């Protein structure tokens, strides 16, 4: 399916909001990528660059009491769902002021007050957790939904099928969002994944759509349908959003990998599908904003990132005395 001009439904403000939200993720990630390469971050960092339209297209229409769970590539989802830039950056810097007080790091950023169950270091784990949160939402009866973000590689974990089965049976308000970026770590899609991922919903009778994950409007519209279905008690949807990961699987991989798993040409060609310039073009062509507006947003975001970095850098590392039984057991 295509978005076929339906974006005219969005106000100028909304469109700029989407743009801002995508750009925030991009700029934060660029910063963290640089920091990681420079050796300034304690642990590994997996960048979301190139996939922003998925997280923003979906999370922009979620409520604070809707749940999301994410994967190792989770900064984008955190920000898209309203997580704070400073708290994110400080966490990845391993500081006491981070959202998890430095205990979680890049792969575990979470903010339960915003419905962000968190990134996850275990591929596929967010799928079952979200299914459970969706069961809770169903019990609450308040119309909240759960959204699990995961990759094409994660779709090969059997838990996806288990979750599709039980959520269809129980009509759980859950949306499984597979961001198919073409790679399972360093393995190209077709070497490890048979058939189409969206099709995996079919045997269970679950709703499913394959969309252009680089087209924010298409993502938004598909998500709107899935969210409606979920809030109306009609059960799960599996969305396969086709996108591309611009950066490596993990920042710095070229320094230790013995070979390559994708060509420069492929990367360059795929980068042409970058969702952010495409969206800027759409805004400009629709006359919904001027280049100056976009530049202003970029400047604001750049300042926001700089501020977050400064905040993180000024923040102390957590004191070992600060950890312990209080966090382990309630």
């Amino acid at each position, binding site marked *: 399916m295509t978005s076929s001009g339906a974006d005219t439904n969005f106000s100028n403000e909304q469109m700029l909001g989407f743009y801002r939200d995508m750009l925030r993720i991009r700029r934060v990630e660029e910063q963290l990528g640089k920091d990681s390469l420079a050796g300034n971050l304690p642990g590994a960092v997996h960048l979301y660059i190139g996939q922003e339209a998925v997280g923003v297209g979906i999370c922009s229409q979620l409520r604070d009491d809707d749940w999301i769970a994410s994967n190792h590539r989770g900064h984008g989802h955190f920000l898209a769902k309203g997580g704070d830039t400073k708290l994110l950056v400080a966490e990845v810097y391993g500081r006491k002021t981070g959202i*998890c007080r430095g205990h979680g790091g890049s792969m*575990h950023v979470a903010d339960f007050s915003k419905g962000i169950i968190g990134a996850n270091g*275990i591929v596929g784990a967010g799928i079952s957790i979200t*299914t459970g949160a969706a069961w*809770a939402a*169903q019990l609450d009866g308040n119309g909240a939904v759960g959204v699990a973000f995961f990759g094409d590689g994660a779709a090969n974990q059997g838990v996806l099928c288990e979750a599709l089965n039980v959520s269809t049976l129980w009509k759980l308000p859950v949306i499984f969002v597979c961001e198919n970026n073409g790679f399972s770590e360093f393995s190209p899609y077709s070497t490890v994944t048979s058939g189409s991922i969206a099709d995996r919903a079919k045997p269970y009778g679950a709703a499913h759509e394959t969309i252009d994950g680089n087209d924010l409007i298409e993502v938004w519209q598909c998500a709107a349908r899935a969210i409606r279905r979920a809030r109306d008690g009609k059960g799960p949807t599996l969305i396969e959003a086709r996108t591309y990961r611009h950066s490596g699987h993990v920042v710095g991989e070229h320094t230790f990998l013995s070979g390559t798993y994708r060509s420069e040409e492929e990367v360059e060609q795929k980068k042409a599908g970058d969702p952010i310039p495409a969206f800027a073009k759409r805004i400009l062509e629709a006359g919904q904003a001027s280049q100056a507006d976009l530049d202003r947003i970029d400047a604001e975001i750049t300042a926001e990132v700089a501020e977050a970095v400064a905040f993180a850098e000024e923040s102390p590392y957590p004191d070992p005395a600060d950890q312990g039984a209080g966090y382990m057991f309630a």
Partner: protein
Amino acid sequence: MAKKRMIQAINETLDSEMAKDPKIVLFGEDVEISLFGDTVGLKDKHGAHRVRNMPISETVMSGMAVGAAAAGYKVVCHMMFGNFMYTGFDSIANQASKLRYMTAGQISLPIVYMSVFGGGRSAAAQHSDAMHPMFMNLGGIKVALPATPADAAGLLRASIHDPNPVVFLQAAGRGGESGEVPDGEVIFELGKAATVHDGDDVTMVAIGAMVRPALRAAKRLAEDGIGVDLIDPRTMVPLDTEAILSSVRRTGRLVVVDEARDLCSAASHVAAVCADQCFEALKAPIKRVTVPDLAMPYSPPLEKALLPNEGSISATVRDLLGKPAGVEA
């Protein structure tokens, strides 16, 4: 006080807690009809939305427990046999045990993962492991092992109230045993050991189903003038080390009885704690009565030979004290 079977004590506890707290939900494979009888009738009383049968999908099940708990429910996740927890192990070991810590205490996860465990019924290797040591080593999971119907009621209630993940392991084949259960809402603090037999010659720590043969041994040894101070820790996480240490400081001797395989058993840990913290009081080697490092066999004589029993427990104590039995030895 009333005599009840363990299964009944568990069932009544689940029932009364669910009646009081609408946030408690229970799910698992066939919890509606209930294989063991511990969840029987709960669906009719508390509703199909709160008591739900699961497909055979332990991986998603154990993770759903995490998600539902994170989203505000008190979740009882019935895993049937402890060995099936291996199938759904990721969400227990990587998620439930770590999520609160990784997020610096943003949430708590009130989950009870319950199952039967251990041997004694010819259920063979894949239905008979005693896997509490594995959970003990995870760090973020409490571990409750009731020895009697009263313990089952008191520990299960405490486990449900506890804001943290608890693995509640009921000895397989002990569900039918009867015991006195106090009236009313019996609740036993997690981390408080019980002394089930007094004595001055040797401290014995017995875990879960091992309390019964240990108690029989203690009574029999008492007849021969050997005083066993028998401690049931009731929970292995948290572990009431103080109760154990103060007994050992008095008796100077320790025997630990555990249904786990020996290597890295709970018995090993209790022994290690005492060899460290009350070494000066020790008058004799610390003995473990455990299961050899084998898989549990099917045939009754094989299985029986592996499990600690009154005879092997008594013999260990007598050896330790240098007082061989007339007939038994």
